[in-house]
């Protein structure tokens, strides 16, 4: 009964979406305020209906209602509650429902908080947003309906793929979708601006916080996925340049560029046309990501059982919105007024450099991801493009971007003073050189690029702090004055510093673990010992164990460092009950130096086990860096709230840092 209710709510939501697409836009065309005003209740109703629909599917999962085909195929009664809930989006149908739910959530947020938007802009934005919801709603109903019943109902379900039964992965899709789908706001605003043929200050002030919020969630979502791959897949790696990873990384790169160009547009009314184009492109890449993951056209270790016919439908949706958006852009972009002038060496100039490098990097990732598809389509040859490609193309583009990063926030708007900025960054540069030298002295091995990258990472961190120090005039004015200035700095300044600092932390983590990882694949019998990166591991054999829905063999490794007992690591091999699938669980000991990482391999005939040992130096800084970036976004966003409602005040705040 509940399931039919949810099914019905989904159908109603699609009808509401159709209404919301047509009526407000008609109102905006004819200047009818009453028709335009219908957008708000429609957006809220659409979200409420989709929420009901989603909750009823969740209910079917929690109560293990196996008469629902989707539940029977993807769940099992013996599964812990959290994975019964996360199972809702652990499959194609449910994850698409979550996708549309989040889309409607963003629409409803605009409807509720958008009272100070020009009514025509708001009507158009909600109308465009609803057209996306309509397309995906119809897609779900006709090709991926999660509410279909089975008769007779099976006795028990088939279960969720065991490697998806993991806390990080349970929350990975919702965060990722908040990011992906969040960029739909930027898209809807861009299309609305093109329909009206104009953008104003309110436009950029609205687009930036939405983009920032989406970017934050996408950052965390990608970081979670990487963290999961690190400890669950047992390969000791954290990023594989896999097509499905790239699918989420491309919108992130473009979204990061959009975040920075929207800044120029908001503060200086420049780069309008470019920002609108970037907004369209970013969401198009999100749609493409959905298409790549859901269609199965790509060979990927991530490719779960997927279905090409649905892929065609998503491809059609993607072509419709991307093509339509770009066509509208081509027709209308000329009408957008050009904004303020600036010299090449200026804050604007540095943000343009950021955009050029980020979008070019996006293109290289796009080429590497789609080239195998194109080649197979044209010649029938099957190839794979792996990490060497991305190391050769993506990394060289990142180096100048990272080097330029600390300079940007120091440069003044319109016309900057590069020499002055260089002086202010001298201390940071000195620290960076020191870090590079120290890295080289300690490691004495690895590629020459590694110490340089360590230096760049430290440069970014120190540069981010230097900006705060400079703005608070530490050491130049009495200390009490510094404290006062520090307190009065706008939150967005802290946000920028924090986010940039996070990038530096991540660069250090990536460099250290990539260049200085130790790996051993060995055979061990009980009682034998082995040394890696200053640790001594003694293998104490294997103990069988029984979990809630799996059996496992748990390896016992006693870890010693300098003769002191540190911990016992317990990597295991599991066999799940349903589906009966083996998985490996790694045993990890984390310290400030890095992670000691163990994987239990196959049993040998002579009683030994094959064992994989890694030491990954500073690897945690990668995810800590992502968390700091998220925090930076959050701090910056808390500043935005002040501004969204108060355009006049924002002007004064915006001027403040330039004093």
């Amino acid at each position, binding site marked *: 009964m509940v399931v039919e209710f949810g099914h019905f709510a989904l159908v109603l939501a699609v009808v509401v979406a159709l209404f919301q697409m047509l009526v407000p836009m008609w109102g905006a065309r004819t200047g009818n305020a009453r028709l335009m005003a219908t957008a708000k209740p429609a957006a809220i109703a659409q979200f409420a209906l989709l929420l009901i629909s989603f909750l009823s599917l969740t209910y079917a999962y929690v109560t293990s209602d196996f008469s629902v085909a989707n539940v029977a195929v993807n769940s099992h009664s013996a599964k812990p509650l959290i994975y019964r809930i996360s199972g809702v989006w652990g499959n194609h149908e449910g994850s698409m429902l979550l996708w549309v739910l989040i889309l409607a959530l963003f629409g409803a947020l605009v409807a509720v908080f958008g009272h100070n938007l020009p009514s025509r802009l708001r009507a158009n934005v909600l109308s465009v947003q609803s057209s996306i919801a309509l397309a995906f709603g119809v897609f779900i109903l006709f090709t991926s309906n999660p509410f279909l019943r089975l008769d007779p109902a099976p006795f028990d379900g088939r279960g969720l793929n065991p490697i998806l039964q993991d806390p990080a992965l349970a929350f990975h899709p919702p965060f990722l979708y908040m990011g992906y789908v969040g960029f739909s706001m930027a898209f809807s605003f861009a299309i609305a601006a093109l329909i009206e043929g104009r953008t104003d200050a309110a436009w950029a002030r609205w687009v930036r916080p939405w983009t920032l919020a989406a970017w934050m969630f996408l950052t965390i979502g990608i970081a979670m996925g990487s963290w999961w791959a690190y400890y669950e897949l047992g390969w000791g790696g954290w990023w594989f340049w896999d097509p499905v990873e790239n699918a989420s990384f491309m919108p992130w790169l473009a979204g990061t560029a959009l975040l920075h160009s929207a800044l120029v547009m908001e503060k200086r009314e420049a780069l309008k046309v470019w920002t609108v184009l970037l907004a369209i492109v970013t969401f198009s890449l999100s749609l493409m990501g959905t298409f790549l993951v859901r269609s199965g056209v790509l060979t990927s270790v991530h490719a779960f059982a997927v279905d090409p016919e649905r892929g065609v439908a998503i491809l059609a949706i993607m072509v419709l919105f991307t093509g339509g958006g770009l066509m509208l852009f081509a027709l209308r972009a000329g009408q957008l007024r050009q904004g303020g002038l600036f010299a090449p060496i200026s804050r604007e100039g540095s943000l*343009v450099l950021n955009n050029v490098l980020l979008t070019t990097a996006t293109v290289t990732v796009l080429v590497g991801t789609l080239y195998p598809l194109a080649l197979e389509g044209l010649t029938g040859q099957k190839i794979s493009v792996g990490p060497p490609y991305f190391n050769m193309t993506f990394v060289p583009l990142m180096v100048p971007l990272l080097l330029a990063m600390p300079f940007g926030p120091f440069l003044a708007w319109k016309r900057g003073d590069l020499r002055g900025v260089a002086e202010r960054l001298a201390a940071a540069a000195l620290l960076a050189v020191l870090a590079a030298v120290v890295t080289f002295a300690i490691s004495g091995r690895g590629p020459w690029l590694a110490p340089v990258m360590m230096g760049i990472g430290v440069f970014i961190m120190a540069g981010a702090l230097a900006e705060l120090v400079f703005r608070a005039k530490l050491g130049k004015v009495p200390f009490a004055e510094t404290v006062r200035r520090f307190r009065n700095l706008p939150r967005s300044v802290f946000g920028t510093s924090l986010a940039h600092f996070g990038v530096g932390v991540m660069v250090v983590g990536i460099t250290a673990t990539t260049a200085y990882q130790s790996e051993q694949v060995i055979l061990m019998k009980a009682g034998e010992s082995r040394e890696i990166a200053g640790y001594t591991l003694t293998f104490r054999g294997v103990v069988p164990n029984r979990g809630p829905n799996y059996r496992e063999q748990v390896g016992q490794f006693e870890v010693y460092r300098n003769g002191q007992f540190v911990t016992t690591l317990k990597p295991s091999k599991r066999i799940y009950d349903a589906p009966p699938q083996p998985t490996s669980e790694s045993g990890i000991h984390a310290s400030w130096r890095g992670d000691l990482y163990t994987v239990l391999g196959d049993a040998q005939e002579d009683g030994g086990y094959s064992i994989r040992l890694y030491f990954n130096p500073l690897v945690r800084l990668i995810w800590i860096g992502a968390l700091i970036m998220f925090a930076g976004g959050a701090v910056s966003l808390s500043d935005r709230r002040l501004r969204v409602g108060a355009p006049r005040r924002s002007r004064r705040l915006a001027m403040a840092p330039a004093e």
Partner: protein
Amino acid sequence: MTRKQKRGLLIGGGVGVLAVAAILVMFALRDTIVFFQTPSDVVAQKVEPGQRFRLGGLVAEGSVRRGTGTHVEFTVTDMTESVPVTYEGILPDLFREGQGVVTEGTLSASGVFVADTVLAKHDENYMPPEVADALKKKGVQLGQGASHPGQQ
């Protein structure tokens, strides 16, 4: 500088970066891509020894032999031809006889494929698409698992 000159500089800079990237991409695509081959391709001597490629097919029944240490030997087949493979390391959890597999490495002069990577799968039901395609062309009937579970 006039507005036009500034815009020219901007566009020139952008095009410059794109050109550098394009050159990098072209070199990278020439040097780093890896082709996918079936055992039939290998037997037909389409591949030079020492050239890196991916070999995909089914792990032949009864072919897996564990040597000393972490040394493993098995045979990859497309039901027409077979290629012996050696691998040093730990096999993925879902590696099994009769199941699809993709390995990456080089062919030795003696015709043995020396793999340094054996690709893991995430899902019992998942068959690497190249393997599925290649096998379909050979007329091999794929069992359960090649299609989406929702369609059965």
